[in-house]
């Protein structure tokens, strides 16, 4: 690969396209909680995408990638979902640029991209908790990873993107210049400004595919937060798991793992021969056999205690591979099935650093609620970016996975109130239940987003269940008020 010219995209396409059957299928998010029926249009080319737009009715279209958003972002009841996962070609690579950049179709997964780039000593700048997301989805949700505090979210690294808009035309938009408003509305815009069909992303260089990792245990939430506040700046990557079950003085005890990309000299000689070896073991696929309430008091307590106890109290400079450090859950395909047929939701919020008390109250609410979460993540965010709907802001972010059970609505409503009172917000890529009114309070820059949407998609052709729930469907109606 070199800097081959990217084939030009025809700005307009022939009116007549062969009709591809669009099966009506149930689509749901990774949480599997609120599925609806959408017409799934298989998109293999730009022409397919334009054709699907032309054929859509007033229910509209939404782009869909690998379906890893937890809620209803990539489904469109009664309308069309554009399956972009076949648009998965890496188009060109400029490995010698400073920075190096890659241009890809939007359906390329971060897994594919990372595997392709490693042999060049290049590194995807932002990796969320799974590699099984598409580049288009990563931009639309403006995903973040363990390096947010040092390197920002995915949108910060996008140099340009090609957007298929409601009028059927393609437009190249960039972070600066006269398309800046549309670019930043698309970053974090949940697919509602148009369909991202290709993107150019700035890359980082790396000498190895390994990380040097320091692990510390913390006895409770205050200890954990203090350790994170004090040392995070020494590490590119930082994240903590915490126990959301244990009450009392050990509430919020956790395991802090922080690391940096390993340099070649840091590898033992055995690994030095093949420093970019990518290890992605698979432990198999979970079958669809789990009942509801698989996560109960006994299993949650046992898991949380074991996870805490098995971590070393203090370990410095351990060499870890990508999967172990970044994506342990990627080892098990379809792990969401463990929550049973009722599904689960993920609640992720951020509150500003100065609202640490509100943060603690949220944690107390969760721990005392009787709702049980095992996969809990705590992280400090760095500065946000110019996107009006991007989630990260400087502050503490906490994530819990909660099986759908009676009373979960009340817990989440109470958390919403605490979070919004502290000037915080919840993450739309995870959300499956926020009300439109609460959303407006959490995202005070919503009107900037709607102004762009009114301009580029006045009829609301790009639509989704999330857009209906949060009243973003028709940019001229209530959402704008």
């Amino acid at each position, binding site marked *: 690969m070199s800097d081959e010219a990217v084939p030009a995209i025809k700005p307009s396409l022939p009116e007549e396209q062969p009709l591809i059957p669009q099966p009506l299928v149930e689509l749901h998010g990774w949480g599997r909680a609120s599925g609806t029926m959408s017409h799934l249009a298989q998109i293999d080319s730009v022409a397919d995408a334009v054709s699907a737009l032309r054929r859509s009715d007033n229910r509209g279209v939404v782009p869909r990638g690998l379906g890893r958003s937890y809620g209803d972002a990539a489904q469109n009841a009664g309308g069309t979902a554009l399956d972009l996962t076949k648009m998965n070609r890496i188009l060109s690579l400029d490995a010698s640029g400073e920075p190096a950049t890659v241009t890809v179709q939007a359906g390329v997964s971060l897994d594919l991209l990372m595997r392709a780039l490693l042999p060049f000593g290049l590194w995807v700048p932002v990796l969320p908790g799974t590699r099984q997301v598409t580049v288009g989805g990563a931009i639309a949700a403006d995903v973040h990873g363990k390096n947010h505090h040092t390197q920002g979210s995915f949108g910060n690294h996008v140099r340009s993107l090609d957007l298929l808009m409601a009028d059927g035309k393609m437009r190249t938009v960039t972070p600066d210049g006269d398309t800046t408003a549309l670019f930043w509305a698309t970053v974090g815009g949940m697919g509602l400004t148009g369909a991202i069909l290709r993107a150019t992303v700035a890359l980082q260089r790396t000498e190895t595919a390994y990380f040097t990792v320091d692990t510390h245990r913390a006895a409770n939430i205050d200890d954990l937060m203090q350790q994170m506040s004090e040392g995070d700046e020494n590490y590119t990557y930082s994240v903590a798991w915490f126990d959301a079950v244990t009450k009392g003085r050990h509430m919020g005890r956790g395991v802090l793992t922080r690391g940096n990309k390993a340099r070649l000299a840091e590898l033992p000689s055995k690994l030095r021969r093949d420093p970019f070896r990518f290890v992605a073991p698979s432990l198999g696929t979970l079958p669809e056999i789990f009942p509801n309430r698989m996560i109960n008091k006994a299993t949650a307590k046992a898991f949380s205690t074991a996870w805490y106890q098995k971590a070393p109290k203090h370990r410095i400079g351990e060499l870890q591979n990508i999967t172990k450090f970044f994506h342990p859950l990627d080892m098990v395909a379809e792990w969401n099935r463990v929550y049973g047929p009722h599904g689960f939701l993920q609640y992720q919020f951020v509150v500003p650093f100065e609202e640490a008390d509100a943060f603690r109250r949220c944690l107390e609410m969760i721990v005392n609620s009787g709702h049980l979460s095992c996969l809990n993540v705590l992280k400090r965010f760095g500065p946000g970016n110019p996107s009006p709907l991007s989630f990260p802001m400087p502050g503490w972010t906490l994530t819990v996975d909660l099986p759908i059970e009676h009373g979960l*609505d009340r817990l989440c409503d109470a958390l919403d109130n605490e979070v919004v009172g502290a000037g915080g917000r919840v993450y739309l890529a995870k959300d499956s239940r926020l009300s439109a009114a609460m959303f407006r309070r959490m995202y005070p820059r919503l009107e900037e987003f709607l102004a762009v949407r009114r301009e580029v998609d006045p009829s609301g052709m790009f639509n989704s269940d999330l857009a209906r729930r949060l009243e973003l469907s028709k940019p001229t109606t209530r959402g704008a008020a």
Partner: protein
Amino acid sequence: MINAVGEPQSLLLVGGTSDIALAIARRYARSGLRVVLAARPSERRTAAAAELTDLKCEITEVDLDARDHESHAATIEQAFAGGDIDIAVMAFGLLGDPEQAWRDPDLALELAEVNYTAPVHLGVLLGQRMQAQGHGWIVALSSVAGERVRRSNFVYGSTKAGLDGFFLGLGEALREYGVRVLVVRPGFVKSKMTSGLDEVPLAVTPDQVAEAVVDGINGKRELVWVPGPLRVVMSGLRHVPRPLFRKLPI
């Protein structure tokens, strides 16, 4: 959209002044919930709208005349004018005096029209709208009276038997389009419909019916009895031989 924790964004109460419909609305009420009250213009409808407004719901009132079939399409059209309907409750019905009902052809016809013909007509119209939107629930209030029709109220019972069968079938037909139908078979409900009648064992309140509806939707059920044990009772009664059934005090 009904969100991941079972909270709807919009309700349509067809028969919007029924005690059961309002009990369901109260269960779901929260700030910003859109509720469409389809009912005859009346003081009761105004009062229902006021009560739900106090619960921070956003109310739209739509006129419904069950016996004027011509008007049904416009009623449904207006009900969907504000956007998708997540849950539509078919909650209107007439009990009528059972002994008069089988002697008076006009009353028998009225019961048949209000309890069966109108729900079928409205059900088809609702089904079309929900099929197009690709999601939603239709809740049909049936009755155990329709499960095995009894001598004591067979005109009413037969209308509910018809309604019950229609909506169970509609649920099967709409399933592949992402639309679900919940048929609810309450026993004796203490409501304005039954005021003045003697209470029977296993009587329930409208609020208990509403709770069963919410649980039924959360559990993605097609059919629920209220109270739950009635399922067993009715299962037994269905198989009682006719000569014996005739002698039962029910």
